[in-house]
């Protein structure tokens, strides 16, 4: 099943200016991810997992080395091309949900479809389908402040999934959730991965998430420490 490669990184380095010097967050990452993976970048704070996720999401650029996502070199993309990549092929799930607070659940999930110029009727159907997947169709008219943390994260998942992206990048998606909600969310994502064949890439150090991952990549001080595969 997991055959086509969708992400390759070669000696990926990322440096950040710090005072008069600089801090190297990624010190040469070589990785490859294939379609349909349910993979996590695992490591303590400062290990470089969020930085790597940001680069793969074309929100940041490498200082050195290469990162190719869906056949596109992140380094060579201009702002317009990188926004096109995010708009069409990538979904994001954030630790603090990052929902648009003044918009309803429906409008939040609808947003990526607006950017892709779907018609109103198509948007309505796709949004309601996505809300059904995550089990909160009845909250379509609510606004984020009226929802619980678990419900907010479900909205964020629906927003990431509504356009059926090739790749979903999730940065600590359960960090603000209790155990029950975390398991619910993870089961939902696993189901979407299984049914829609969407590739999920997590950045996490949450044991609950780690338990669901099919592939675990352990990062330490900006380098890949080791990898583990889940035995089916």
């Amino acid at each position, binding site marked *: 099943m997991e055959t086509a490669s969708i992400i390759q990184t070669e000696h990926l380095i990322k440096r950040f200016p710090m005072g008069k010097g600089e801090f190297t967050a990624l010190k040469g990452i070589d990785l490859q991810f294939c379609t349909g993976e349910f993979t996590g970048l695992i490591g303590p704070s400062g290990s470089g997992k969020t930085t790597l996720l940001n680069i793969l999401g074309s*929100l940041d650029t490498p200082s050195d080395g290469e990162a190719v996502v869906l056949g596109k070199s992140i380094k060579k993309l201009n702002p317009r091309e990188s926004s096109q990549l995010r708009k069409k092929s990538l979904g994001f799930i954030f630790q603090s949900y*990052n929902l648009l*607070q*003044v*918009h309803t659940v429906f409008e939040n999930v609808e*947003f990526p479809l*607006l950017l892709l110029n779907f018609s109103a009727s198509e948007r309505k159907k796709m949004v309601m389908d996505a809300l059904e997947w995550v089990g909160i169709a009845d909250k379509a008219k609510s*606004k984020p402040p009226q929802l619980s943390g678990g419900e907010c994260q479900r909205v964020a998942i629906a927003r990431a999934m509504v356009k059926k992206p090739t790749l979903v990048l999730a940065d600590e998606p359960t960090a603000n959730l209790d155990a029950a909600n975390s398991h619910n969310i993870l089961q939902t994502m696993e189901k979407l991965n299984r049914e829609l064949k969407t590739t999920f890439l997590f950045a996490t150090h949450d044991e609950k998430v780690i338990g669901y991952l099919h592939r675990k990549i352990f990062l330490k001080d900006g380098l890949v420490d080791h990898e583990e595969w889940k035995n089916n």
Partner: protein
Amino acid sequence: MRIALKLAYRNLIGAGLRTWLNVIVLSFSFVMIIWAKGLMVGWDNQAKTDMEQWEIGKGQFWHEQYDPYDAFSINNSHAPIPEAFQSEIENKTMVPVLIAQGTLYPQGRMQSVRIKGIPPDQTLLKIPAHKLDTLSDALPAIVGASMAHSSHLNKGDRVILRWRDNKGTFDATEIEIVDIFPTNVPTVDVAQVWINLETMQEKLLLPNEATLFSLANAEENRSSVEAFHYKNRKELTAEIDAMVKTKSKGQSMFYVILMALAMLAIFDTQVLSIFRRQKEIGTYVALGYTRQQVVGLFTVEGAMHAILAAVVAAVYGVPFFIWQAHAGMKLPMDTSEFGMAIAPVMYPIYSISLIISTTLIVLLTTTLVSYWPSRKIARMSPTDALRGKIQ
């Protein structure tokens, strides 16, 4: 752009009270600017109409030496009425006026006045000249309300009027105030005494002479006739234009302050929004917006304040404008001594161009003020924005 408009609308409506406070402040600016400008147009229009009805008609012929501001040349600025004017005078489409400098002695005081002779049968100007036909053993005279007020004159009062005739000899007579007329035009009122033209010509030894002629028919240009030169309405009302222009400049400061207050509210909202909505900005970028598109979205949001404000302004502004156009604005002070035509009640006049130009100016200014702080977004790192780390 369509998406930006849709999102901006959702964001503004979603922001609730914050949006409506800005919108109300901005709508107040719309209404006040249009109302105040309308008042200036109304004043200008009213002053010119009053001046036309009371003094200048549709145009005037002036004696070549006549200068209304030069008291020394007044007594020389007259000439025989040209033959060419006779038919118009007989048809009552032209009113001759003779002007001379004089002195009035109300209640023992001495007051310099301008004596004006006008035919009692004229109907072109609103001056009630027919009252000069009143039978009296003194010389019948009429004065404006302001003149009567400042000289403590009442109807029926008798006072001494003195002048110099054409030979330079001083002469005087007793006049009787047979009427006091209310007018908004100070140039026919303040320090003016109106008497019968023929009597004045006799007393001044200036038979059949006049200083100026007011005309019933408007013409852009007429050639000079003997010693009299034509002045069209535009030339005669130039002083009002200049005065209104001066007042408009002063009033512009008021608009600027009003606009500055509204713009400050928009600017503050934008700056605060960019600071408070960093995560939202990062989210827009993560979901596929370019940073320039986010700048566009914030700019449209700002500009949309002006559009909403225009709608809100229309809701309460239109009834207010209509009411003001009918009821007018009463001036809180006596305007008779302002030196120019100001009615005690001013009626604003609103034109489509006034409303459109004001709307466009406010919209454009709001857009610029919104764009200015929004440019900061273009320099934001999306990853920092997502974490809300930008200070």
